């Protein structure tokens, strides 16, 4: 088999890149190799099953938990801080946006200058202005509802859809932030609105079951790929599922010739020759694939002469602060499944050295759970008091942490339940992290006090690898990074990595909008090559 552009993976990075190449040339020869299989989307029975049981049709395509003393599992967590893989990605056609939240922030200009501003990590080899127009394209490609007048980042193009108004659940925290002179804004969110969407994009019906949307109103690459295929517009665009890429075929020090993949159905190894290969397999798998592709020229793995591949692993610690309230007179309860209010006030140059962070008012800030109370037999009077009485409030957020060489992922020599090499994760949080969380807690405490809420202990913190990044980072210098500013592996003419793995640093916000901007930019670069 022979193709021009071979893309490994079929997530949003692969899909946005393929779409850009096809926009430039609808006959472009492109093959996506995807390890996972297909999940049925926009299906009413599967939706209702999720509604009443909480079970998702793609749960089986997530990693298992790490092995416990008395329970088998998969992957190895060998560092001082547990970074769970289970739940952090989905191995399926279309990849992990099948379960993403759709929060779609841009990085801020200062994020591209981390080293210059703070002395930590490295600078990006590109600036905010290099990416600005691509951010606009990515917002339109994904379909973001957002506030085009939000002052937190410079922008030259409006969002495609208006922002969702602040919900009533936002009121207490909004009042508190106003009292403390902390500006807040709308969460830019991947939900189709009424406007310039095409016929396959049904505006969000605020149904609130977004992990399985019955209408496909929140971007996911699964739907986008099936729309691309069923349009019959692209004769030379193909996807092969159940294809685990085992290694890159290396033909010389500066050239690769294609890949070898395991066809899960037949158990056979199959070679595909390609003019160029783009690895878009998600952060962790992209690094692992480079590491296991060796030759006499690349003894430590492709692009790994400086021993950087797989290192500098970062993700966002996601924190949840909880407070108690004595009463809930507005009967606040989750009316939505996505947040509408956030503050990027602490996502600023001033906070960059210490670890910038965002705060988000979650959609279930007052976590009233009517169904489970009724299931357990609570009667009507009890429910009335339950809804208006004492409850909890929550405030969520994410904080930037910086890459460290010792934090890394590598291949673990056994296969997971999906037929891929398992992962060894070696991550230990920085010794200053808990001090920083203490400072954040002081801010949140003031906000809670203004809301009339009493903070409950320390926050819960998840280091889950949802935003795993930087393990093949871009740099100006091969000694400190794996990729150049065009996502090309240093020293190789025809190998690229398009993934959060390429991020030089991660900032305080979710990565996927930036990833999509990078993918579209790569599409332009490859089309002009």
């Amino acid at each position, binding site marked *: 088999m022979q193709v021009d552009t071979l893309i490994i993976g079929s997530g949003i990075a692969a899909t946005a890149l393929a779409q850009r190449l096809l926009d430039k040339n609808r006959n472009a020869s492109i093959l996506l190799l995807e390890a996972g299989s297909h999940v*049925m989307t*926009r*299906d*009413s*029975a*599967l*939706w*209702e*099953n999720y*509604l*009443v*049981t909480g079970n998702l*049709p793609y749960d089986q395509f997530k990693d298992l938990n790490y092995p416990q003393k008395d329970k088998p599992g998969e992957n190895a967590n060998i560092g001082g801080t547990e970074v769970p893989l289970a739940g952090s990605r989905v191995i399926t056609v279309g990849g992990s946006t099948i379960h993403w939240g759709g929060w779609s922030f841009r990085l801020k200009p200062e994020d591209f200058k981390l080293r210059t501003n703070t002395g930590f990590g490295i600078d990006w080899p590109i600036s905010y202005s290099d990416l600005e127009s691509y951010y606009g394209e990515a917002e339109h490609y994904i379909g973001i*509802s957002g506030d085009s007048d939000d002052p937190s980042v410079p922008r030259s193009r409006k969002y495609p859809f*208006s922002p*969702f*108004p*602040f*919900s*009533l659940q*936002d*009121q207490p925290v*909004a009042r508190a932030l106003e009292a403390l002179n902390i500006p807040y804004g709308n969460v830019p969110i991947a939900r189709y*609105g*009424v406007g310039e969407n095409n016929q396959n994009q049904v*505006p*969000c*019906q*605020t*149904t*609130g*079951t977004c992990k399985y949307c*019955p*209408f496909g109103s929140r971007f996911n690459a699964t739907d986008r790929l099936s729309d691309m295929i069923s349009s019959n517009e692209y004769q030379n665009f193909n996807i092969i599922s159940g294809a685990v890429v085992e290694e890159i075929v290396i033909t010389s020090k500066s050239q690769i010739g294609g890949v070898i993949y395991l066809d899960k159905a037949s158990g056979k190894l199959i070679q595909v020759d390609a003019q160029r290969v783009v690895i878009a397999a998600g952060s962790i798998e992209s690094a692992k694939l480079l590491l296991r592709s060796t030759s006499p020229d690349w003894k430590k793995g492709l692009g790994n002469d400086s021993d950087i591949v797989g290192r500098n692993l970062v993700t966002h610690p996601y924190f949840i602060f909880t407070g108690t309230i004595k009463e809930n007179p*507005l*009967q606040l*309860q*989750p*009316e*939505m*499944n996505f947040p509408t209010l956030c503050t990027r006030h602490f996502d600023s140059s001033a906070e960059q050295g210490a670890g910038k962070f965002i705060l988000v008012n979650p959609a279930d800030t007052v976590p*009233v759970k*009517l*169904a489970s109370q*009724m*299931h*357990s*037999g609570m*009667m*009507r009077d009890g*429910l*009335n008091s339950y*809804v*208006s009485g004492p409850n909890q409030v929550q405030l969520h957020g994410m904080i930037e942490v910086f890459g460290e060489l010792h934090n890394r992922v590598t291949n673990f020599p056994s296969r997971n339940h999906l037929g891929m090499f398992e992962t060894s994760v070696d991550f230990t949080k920085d010794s200053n992290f808990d001090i920083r969380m203490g400072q954040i807690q002081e801010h949140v405490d003031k906000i809670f006090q203004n809301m009339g809420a009493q903070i409950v202990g320390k926050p819960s913190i998840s280091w889950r690898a949802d935003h795993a990044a930087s393990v093949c980072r871009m740099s100006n210098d091969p000694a400190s990074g794996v990729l150049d500013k065009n996502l090309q592996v240093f020293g190789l003419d025809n190998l690229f990595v398009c993934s959060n793995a390429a991020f030089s640093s991660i900032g305080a916000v979710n990565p996927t909008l930036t990833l999509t901007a990078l993918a579209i930019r790569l599409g332009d670069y490859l089309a002009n090559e």
Partner: protein
Amino acid sequence: MQPTKSQHPLSATLAPLDDAIRDAMWELFVQIGKFWKNIDDPSEHKPRVYSFMENRIALDPMYRDYYITANNVIKQLVDQYGEVEGYHHLFTDPDAMKSPPATPLALTRQKVSNEFVSLQLAVGGFKAFGAKNYCGFIGGAYVPSAPVPYRTMENHDAG
């Protein structure tokens, strides 16, 4: 939304549910609204309840037996305690919540009645508790300048 596509291979060969059982399940749905006093007239939801049952059976053929079992359990409860007390028992007996369900009553509560409660809340039962939207309710699109499908800070501030 596309029509239902997913189907368990065994479900395709099953005979449809008897009308008597479908009607008994509809009555269960009606009784949920009476017990929790959150939907007075549920009749507009009848087609949705029927298609819900079809979808459940399409995904998992066991649901046909769950609905048949539920019909028997509810009959027995109503015969034994009368209508009001019989449903009260079904909706509140803590033993029926033990997991995994090991009795016909527990199966009826967990696989049928509680699922209907979730559905009933999502089609509109939630409105009795103060909200305008709910996770599972098709609230409608947000169209700038038209009423927002959920309670907003702005509308509330404006009174």
